[in-house]
C-alpha cells in the first residue's frame, strides 16, 4: 500500500454540545476512488469543510501529502493539490466558460500577480483551457457565458476548473446533483477518464454512481465513521443497511 496522500487523525469538531465530526481517522491513497456516503445530516459536508480548511477542527489533524495542513487556509491547501468541486455550482457566472478555466490555470501557475498581459502566453493558456474543455465536451461552449449554459453543463464547468488545477486529491461534492439521471452519462465518462494516479473522494447520493466507481466506501453517520470497506462489504453490512433502510442501498 502506498503512503496516503490525504489523512485525518482523530479529526473532531463540535459546536458546544453539538458534535458534527467525531474523531474521524481517514486515509486516502493516490489512485484510489473512494466514496463518502451517509444520510442527510451525517456530517459529510462538515468533513469536506474540515478537509478543505473552510472550518477549523476542534481537535485532530489533517495531513496532506506528508504535511500537517491543519492550520493552513483554504488556498494554501489548494496549492498543495487538494481541490474540490461544489455541490451547488460555484462559478464565475458572467465570465465565459473558457475564462473560468483560464482563471484557474493562471492561479495554478502562480500567474495571478502578473500585472502585464502577454499575448503569446495567453494563446498558449487558451489552447490548454480548450484542451480541458475538449475532454469534457464543453469545447463548443467555450465562448459562452457560464450563466447561458444549461445546469448540467455548468456542473461540468465545475469539474473543468478542478482539473485545470492539476489536483492530487479531488473532492467531488455530489457532481451529479441537480442533473436528470438521463444526463449523467457525461459525468460518468469524465469520472472514468480521470488520471490513474489521482486520489478521488466523491460525496454522492446516487448509489448507482457510487457502486459503479468506488473502490472503497466510507459511511458517515452522526459525524462518526460507521463502516468502511469495499462496495461488497458495505452493501452487506447490516448496520449500514439499517441506516439506509428504505433508501434502497444496493450493489
Amino acid at each position: 500500500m502506498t503512503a496516503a496522500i490525504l489523512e485525518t487523525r482523530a479529526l473532531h469538531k463540535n459546536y458546544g454540545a453539538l458534535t458534527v465530526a467525531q474523531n474521524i481517522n481517514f486515509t486516502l491513497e493516490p489512485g484510489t476512488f473512494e466514496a463518502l456516503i451517509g444520510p442527510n445530516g451525517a456530517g459529510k459536508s462538515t468533513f469536506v469543510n474540515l478537509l478543505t480548511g473552510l472550518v477549523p477542527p476542534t481537535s485532530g489533524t489533517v495531513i496532506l501529502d506528508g504535511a500537517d495542513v491543519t492550520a493552513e487556509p483554504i488556498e494554501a491547501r489548494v496549492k498543495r493539490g487538494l481541490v474540490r468541486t461544489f455541490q451547488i455550482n460555484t462559478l464565475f457566472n458572467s465570465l465565459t466558460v473558457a475564462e473560468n478555466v483560464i482563471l484557474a490555470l493562471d492561479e495554478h501557475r502562480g500567474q495571478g500577480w502578473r500585472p502585464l498581459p502577454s499575448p503569446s502566453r495567453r494563446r498558449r493558456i487558451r489552447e490548454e483551457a480548450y484542451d480541458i474543455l475538449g475532454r469534457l465536451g464543453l469545447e463548443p461552449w467555450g465562448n459562452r457565458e457560464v450563466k447561458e449554459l444549461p445546469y448540467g453543463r455548468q456542473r461540468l464547468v465545475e469539474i473543468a476548473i478542478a482539473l485545470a488545477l492539476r489536483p492530487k486529491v479531488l473532492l467531488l461534492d455530489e457532481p451529479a446533483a441537480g442533473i436528470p439521471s438521463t444526463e449523467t452519462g457525461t459525468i460518468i465518462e469524465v469520472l472514468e477518464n480521470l488520471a490513474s494516479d489521482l486520489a478521488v473522494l466523491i460525496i454522492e447520493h446516487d448509489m448507482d454512481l457510487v457502486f459503479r466507481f468506488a473502490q472503497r466506501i466510507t459511511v458517515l453517520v452522526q459525524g462518526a465513521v460507521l463502516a468502511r470497506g469495499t462496495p461488497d462489504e458495505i452493501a452487506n453490512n447490516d448496520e449500514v443497511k439499517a441506516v439506509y433502510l428504505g433508501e434502497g442501498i444496493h450493489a
Partner: protein
Amino acid sequence: MARTERVKSMSATYNAASGTGVSTPSTWRGLAMGRSGSDLVIASLLVLAGLATLLFGEPYWLLGAQVAITMIFALSVDLLVGFAGIVTLGHAVFFGLGAYTVGIASVHLGWTEPLSGLLLAGASAGLLGLGTGVLVLRTKGLGQLMLTMAFASLVYEIANRAKPVTGGADGLQGVIVAPIFGLFDFDIFGLTAFLYTLAVLGIVVLFAVLMTRSPYGRSLVGIRENRVRMQAIGTNVQQRLLSIYVVSAALAGVAGALLAQTSQFVGLNALHFGLSGEVLIIVALGGAGRLWGALLGAVVFSLFKDRLSALDPAYWYFWLGLLLAVIVLFAPKGLIGLVDRLMAALHPKEAQ
C-alpha cells in the same frame, strides 16, 4: 469604417485560432476585454476631443486639465469598484491626501519639483490605503461603505483642525510648483497644466488598460464574480484585494496631487465627502468595470457640471439629478452601455 473592419477581422482570427466557430466574436467579453468596439470608439472620441481642445480651445485648457484629473480619479475608483467589487464612499481621502502632500511639501518644506511630488503623493496615499485597507477589507458591502466614510471623515476633520499645517478651512494658499523638467513653467493660460495632466492621464490609462488585461486584473474580476470560487482555485483573496486597494489609493493620490499642482491651491473640498460621492456617481454614469466607461463618465459629468453651474448657478444640481435619473432609468449599464447598444445596432451580426 476602417477601424471597425479591423476589429471584425481581429475577432475572426481569434475565433479561428481557438478552433471554435461559435457565436460570439469577443473572447473576453465577460472580463470586460471584449466589446472592444465600444472601447475603441470612446477612446478615439476622447483623443479627438483632447486634440481639438489643445489646438482650438485655448480658453478651456484649465478646464481640460481639471477634466483629465477627474478622469484619473474616476479610473482609480473604477479599478476598485468596477473591477474588484470593493465599494467605497471615502475615496476622496486619498485624492485629498495626495493634494495636501504636494501642497504641504511645497509650502512648508520647499519641495516644489512636480514629478517627484506626484510620486510622493502617490506613495503617501498608497500608504494610507495600506493602513486603512487592512481594516476596510475585513468587511463587505455596507460595512465597507461605513468604514471608508468613517476614515474619510476622520482625515477631513484632522485637516480641518491642523490649521498651521493645512491652512484649515482657508485652504493651503501659494503652492509653488517648479517648472516641469526645469523647463516648462506653469503658465496662466494653463497650456503646461493641460499637457502635463494629459501626459499623466495617458500613462495612467495605459497602465490601467494593461493591468486589467493581465492575469492579475482578471483575478480581480474573478474575486468580484465569486470570491469563494477564487479561494477554491488557490487565491489569497484578501492579499489580492489589498493590493488593488493600495494601487487605487495611490492613483487617487496622484490625481489629487495634479489638482494641487495645476491650481496651486489645496482646499478641504479635496477631502470632502461630496467628492467621494461624486466620483462614484461618475463611475456609475459612465458604466462600472469598463475603464473607458469611467473615463467617458468623468468627461460628461465634468462638462455638465461646468456648463450647468454657469447657466444656472443656484439650481444646477437639479439638472444634474435629472440627467442621472434619466441615465439610470434608460441606460442601466451607463453611457458605455449606450455605446454598446449603438454598436450592436450598427453591426447586428456581431451582437449575436
